[in-house]
């Protein structure tokens, strides 16, 4: 019996056996609450996906943290920076595609669970999609303004 092996086996069991089962529970909850017109369900939906993808997320965190040598003082900063880059340049463009699909859905009303269609619904999603695609530019614009203002008012 070895402490490290025991801990590793317990964590692996939780991640590989229990979490996918919890994911199924979350999917059931998401479907049930989707049927209730005024209940939120997306947190269960994302939770279910997350539970199925835990090993993948672990590899992702390792990839972010493994960009530097283990004792490098910059390793934490580089890991967070890589995560921010990944979110902004991989996940947000995907979110843009989802937002466009949502805009179409909101305009047509096929996703409405209450029968109520918001007039500005599609515009809201299109705007969010464009913001998602432009985040890097928005950050650069903000930095430009800050840099330009650093010298004070003339």
């Amino acid at each position, binding site marked *: *019996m*070895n*402490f*490290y092996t*025991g*801990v*590793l086996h*317990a*964590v*692996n069991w*939780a*991640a590989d056996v229990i*979490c996918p089962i*919890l994911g199924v529970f*979350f999917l059931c909850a998401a479907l049930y609450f989707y049927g209730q017109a005024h209940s939120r369900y997306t*947190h*269960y939906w*994302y*939770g*279910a996906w*997350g*539970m199925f993808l*835990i090993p993948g*997320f*672990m590899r992702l*965190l*390792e990839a*972010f*943290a493994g960009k*530097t040598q*283990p*004792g*490098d*003082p*910059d*390793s*934490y900063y580089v*890991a*967070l920076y890589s*995560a921010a880059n990944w979110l902004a340049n991989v996940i947000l463009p995907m979110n843009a595609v989802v937002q466009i699909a949502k805009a179409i859905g909101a305009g047509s009303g096929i996703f409405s669970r209450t029968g109520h269609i918001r007039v500005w619904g599609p515009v809201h999603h299109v705007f969010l999609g464009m913001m998602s695609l432009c985040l890097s530019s928005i950050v650069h614009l903000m930095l430009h303004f800050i840099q330009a203002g650093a010298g004070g008012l003339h």
Partner: protein
Amino acid sequence: MSNPPLLVDTVALLMALRIPAALLCLYKAALSMGGGWNASGIFAGAFGRWMGWAIIFLTLPELLLWFSGLDTSTTQASVSNPWLSTFSAQLTDFVNKLVIRNLAIAVGAWFLLRAIVNLAHGDSPIASLLGCFALLSLNSLYTLMESYHQAGNPYATADLVLSLWQFAASKLAPAATGVCLMGIIWSVAHKRPWLHLAGSGFAFLCLFGLWGLTKHYLGLA
């Protein structure tokens, strides 16, 4: 001038009993680990104290090297009195066979039950589970400490403490990242805050880097 035999035998007995004493301290440390209410509380208080004593008992010969100016030759002697020698052997046997190999495992089973009760109360079961694992693996923990123990090195105590930290940072911290990930997903599904788990998950993976950064700040790098 030779030392009185009674004194030599007493010192030799105490030196012979330092290994069972270290094992008992490890047992108490594992109990303290499981007795905490959350994982962060493990490192404060009784756990650290008992681990400290276990390390001191294990590295006592190396600590005595710092006082080699005094006559410490009696610490090298073996017990000459047959009764004391038998007592030492039987006490070592008692600790090894009863406490470490049987009692610790039985108590570990109770900590598993405590983990489930923790869960039922909505508390974290991590401290109880770690205590359970530690009690079930006391022998291997001792072997691990022995493997880090550099006999004859006057700095063995400090080296052992650092080696145990490196073991925790390199082996246990990545497993803790996995637990953080599960906590993140659980929190997302229940609409609870999770950013602190993401930050600590990264920190667990970058512990050596953060240690390098801390030393760099203090000019120790």
